[in-house]
């Protein structure tokens, strides 16, 4: 019962962060800031949801000799989250880089630097 409650809390927290990512995706002004919202919603929220699932697996855990196969399931889920932690920043970076190469103009706040634009001629 307690384990179910903890896992529900984790999953709900993940869903709330997903909502934040989706709202950011709609509300942010340009391509780059939207990619921020889209790419970041994935990391923490999917991590939290998967962690919630992994904790839920423990809900009918009785003894190590009988239920050790559920431990393997939990290990697989942790493997998935590690995989997400590796691939998510890579894809976010690839999207942004492709956007820059394609000539998408970033919306820069006034008085703030755009060093990439400054150094662009040197490349």
């Amino acid at each position: 019962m307690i384990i179910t409650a903890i896992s529900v809390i984790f999953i709900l927290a993940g869903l709330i962060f997903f909502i934040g990512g989706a709202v950011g995706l709609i509300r942010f002004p340009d391509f780059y800031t939207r990619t921020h919202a889209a790419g970041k919603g994935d990391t923490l929220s999917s991590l939290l949801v998967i962690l919630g699932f992994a904790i839920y697996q423990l809900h009918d855990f009785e003894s190590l000799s009988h239920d050790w196969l559920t431990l393997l399931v939990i290990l697989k889920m942790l493997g998935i989250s590690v995989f997400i932690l590796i691939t998510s920043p890579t894809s976010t970076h690839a999207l942004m880089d492709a956007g820059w190469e394609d000539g998408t103009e970033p919306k820069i706040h006034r008085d703030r630097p755009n060093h990439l634009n400054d150094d662009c001629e040197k490349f």
Partner: protein
Amino acid sequence: MASPETKRNLYRGVVFGLLFLTWMIFSGLFDAFHLTLGVISCGIITWMSSDLLFEDRTIPLSARLRQGVRLGGYCFWLLWQIVLSNLHLFRLAFSSPKALQPHIVRYETKLKTDFEKYLLASSITLTPGTVTIKIMGDRFYVHAISDIAAEGLDGEMERRIARIFAMKEAKQALEAPTS
């Protein structure tokens, strides 16, 4: 001091062990048939591409182990940073658009190897509010969504990454004259 050949074999053994552990976790079947399949496929992969996992094989395995432990500790610190900055981005998503100050900053790094740079770039991207757009030699171009997010680029991340691999530089300097 072990000879380079035995060291290479040790590294092969480590790669095989890691692969086989992964096999056992993902298969979950421990009868003779599936274990034999695992040994065969892990053996083929180790034979063909064990160079991919550890490039530099002059480093002793004990130093690798210490680096691995420190990398694990760094991951926990990074997870905490991810939580903090996700909260920041969450607040930004619901506040007025004026709260955003998007800009692109230059960030110079002292890290040398590709893996360290990869780790730093990934860490910058993982902490929300900052995304590495380009790496040009030692320069990272980072898109920051607000001033607060950009303050995260104060070099503490880089110091922590440098500390993980600090052993390596010292060891290489020590071993250079003998090898």
